[in-house]
């Protein structure tokens, strides 16, 4: 068993001139980073951390935008033996106050020793620091020599063991930042071995990605796997992609990209928003697999994507699926590359009322479920009922997993770690069923909303509405509803106020929309302000999200929801 530094050293000594990453920027030429340049840049960071007396095993938070510094500081932290954790950068959409509160929350739970950031952002970061907190130093990117010679043997990272923690991965929001998924070298390599095998990954592959590195899909599939496997990575910024999705197609064509991971909404987004003039000479025939992952997979989204790009060499068999989560490093399942993911047409009524996925018959109303593939060879998947007993094939229950690539724990949160497991199985919080060894994911047990591939906790959004004048605590409900057109969930917030005046409702709705968006960076599709007694509560007085969602959908279909 090996460690990240050992693997990097081996790749460097074998092919120092091979390009590890082609960094893409809007309006600038692509910038190739060879393994030699990667190691030199990383070493400069490792030394900077060492000078600041950052010890192996301590956590270093990286607050950097897409670019060289993010890549070098990540690997430099690892060469120093410390544990990197990438925190999203402050965007113009998010309020600075909320960002500071999030960063404070992260510091209080994770207790990092250092933060790495840009000179322009240093003041913002220092504003969060308090006497007695864990941060001993803020390292600013341009304060030291950027590339230095390589002297592997003296770097402390080489003393790390395979079972040591190598990195932390957080999801966003107040709730997500308190749950840093801690992964060991060994877990990550076990995942990469099993997942690489499922993909038949080879050095002939080229991975194209626009995914952010603070998200598991971007960090593992779109960063660590290629770099640690000697597979070239073409990396663009998510902010550039969302404004110019055609750049993904151009990059696949230019670099003969073979593998890309996308959340479901991106299939719709690309199919709907790319103009012909931007892809005239684009050839997508090199794509072996475009893997749909991190939100529920939809057959309609695959069809839309295929129809839009089939004349550019896209093969239908290239459209694949995977079920993945940070707690398992990344992949749990993968569909069989080269053939179409299985599609299961099931009876809608039995699915809804009896929670059984029966094949449809006699023209009764049905729904098409797309498989997420079979478990990776190192992962066991079972479906359990409320009591924790395994259920039969085609019965819907909670998906539980076991593997040799699980998280070491939620960092500094043994309480949460313990709650996440039952009899040695990790409880995913997702509902689904198994048929012929294929895993079908059908919904979620947790109230989490997945919008554009991003996990959002409704309680975080509800808490934000209570900060808006006129909204009382405990009288808002947030949930997601699936949007066929966008291929992802739309966020809905309903807030109950004392007034019955429609103008007052409109004013408060605007206030909620603005405040929640500025404080969560989540766009709200529907904001509905209602008079007293609209929101349904459980007998214990809690808001019942599912019941309120049903009521909202009913009113929407009656044409009353659009006030």
């Amino acid at each position: 068993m090996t460690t990240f530094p050992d693997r990097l050293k081996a790749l460097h000594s074998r092919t120092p001139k091979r390009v590890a990453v082609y960094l893409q920027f809007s309006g600038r030429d692509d910038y190739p980073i060879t393994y030699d340049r990667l190691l030199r840049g990383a070493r400069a960071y490792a030394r900077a951390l060492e000078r600041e007396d950052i010890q192996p095993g301590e956590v270093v938070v990286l607050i950097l935008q897409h670019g060289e510094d993010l890549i070098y500081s990540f690997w430099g932290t690892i060469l120093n033996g410390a544990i990197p954790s990438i925190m999203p950068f402050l965007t113009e959409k998010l309020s600075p106050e909320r960002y500071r509160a999030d960063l404070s929350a992260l510091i209080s739970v994770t207790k990092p020793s250092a933060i790495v950031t840009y000179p322009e952002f240093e003041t913002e970061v220092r504003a969060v620091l308090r006497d007695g907190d864990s941060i001993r130093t803020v390292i600013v990117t341009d304060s030291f020599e950027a590339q230095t010679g390589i002297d592997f043997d003296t770097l402390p990272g080489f003393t790390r063991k395979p079972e040591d923690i190598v990195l932390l991965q957080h999801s966003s929001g107040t709730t997500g930042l308190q749950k840093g998924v801690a992964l060991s070298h060994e877990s990550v390599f076990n995942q990469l071995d099993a997942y690489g095998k499922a993909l038949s990954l080879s050095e002939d592959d080229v991975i194209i990605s626009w995914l952010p590195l603070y998200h598991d899909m971007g960090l593992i599939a779109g960063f660590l796997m290629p770099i640690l496997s000697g597979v070239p990575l073409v990396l663009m910024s998510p902010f550039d992609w969302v404004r110019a999705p055609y750049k993904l197609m151009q990059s696949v064509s230019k670099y003969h990209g073979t593998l890309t991971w996308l959340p479901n909404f991106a299939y719709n987004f690309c199919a709907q928003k790319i103009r012909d003039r931007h892809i005239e000479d684009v050839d997508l025939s090199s794509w072996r697999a475009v893997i749909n992952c991190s939100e529920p997979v939809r057959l309609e989204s695959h069809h839309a994507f295929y129809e839009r790009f089939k004349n550019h060499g896209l093969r239908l068999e290239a459209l694949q699926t995977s079920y993945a989560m940070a707690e398992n490093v990344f992949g749990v399942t993968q569909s069989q590359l080269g053939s179409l993911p299985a599609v299961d047409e099931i009876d809608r009524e039995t699915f809804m009322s009896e929670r059984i996925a029966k094949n449809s018959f006699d023209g009764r109303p049905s729904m098409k479920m797309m498989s997420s593939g079979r478990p990776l060879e190192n992962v066991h998947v079972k479906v359990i009922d409320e009591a924790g007993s395994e259920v039969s094939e085609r019965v819907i229950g909670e998906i539980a997993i076991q593997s040799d690539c699980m998280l070491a724990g939620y960092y500094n949160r043994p309480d949460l770690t313990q709650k996440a497991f039952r009899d040695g199985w990790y409880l995913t919080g997702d509902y689904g069923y198994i048929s012929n060894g294929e895993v079908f994911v059908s919904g979620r047990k947790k109230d989490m909303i997945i919008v554009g591939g991003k996990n959002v906790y409704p309680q975080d959004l509800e808490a934000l509405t209570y900060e808006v004048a006129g909204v009382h605590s405990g009288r808002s409900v947030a949930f997601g509803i699936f949007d066929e057109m966008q291929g992802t969930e739309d966020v809905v917030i309903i807030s109950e106020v004392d007034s019955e005046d429609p103008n007052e409702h409109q004013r408060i709705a605007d206030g909620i929309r603005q405040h929640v968006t500025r404080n969560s960076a989540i766009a709200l599709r529907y904001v509905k302000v209602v008079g007293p007694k609209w929101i349904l509560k459980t007998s214990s007085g809690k808001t019942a999200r599912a019941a309120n969602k049903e009521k909202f959908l009913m009113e929407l279909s009656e044409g009353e929801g659009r006030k």
Partner: protein
Amino acid sequence: MSDVIAQLSAFVSTNILKQPNRVIESSEPLISSGLIDSFSLMDLALFVEDTFGVRIEDTELNTGTFDNLNQLASLIESRKA
């Protein structure tokens, strides 16, 4: 000019905000306020191109180019040949 603003306003309230009755003031901040997110910004750019024949490049989709309907309408007028 006011006709352009009316069309833009109708598109934003109906297609982006899903509140057809919502009146968008022509000086109301759209992007910096969080009313329009980056995904919807693309929709607005495509709508402008299809409706007015005016292109807004991807690098221009930020508050430096426009943040309210007045500014967007001026941009459209200035680019209409």
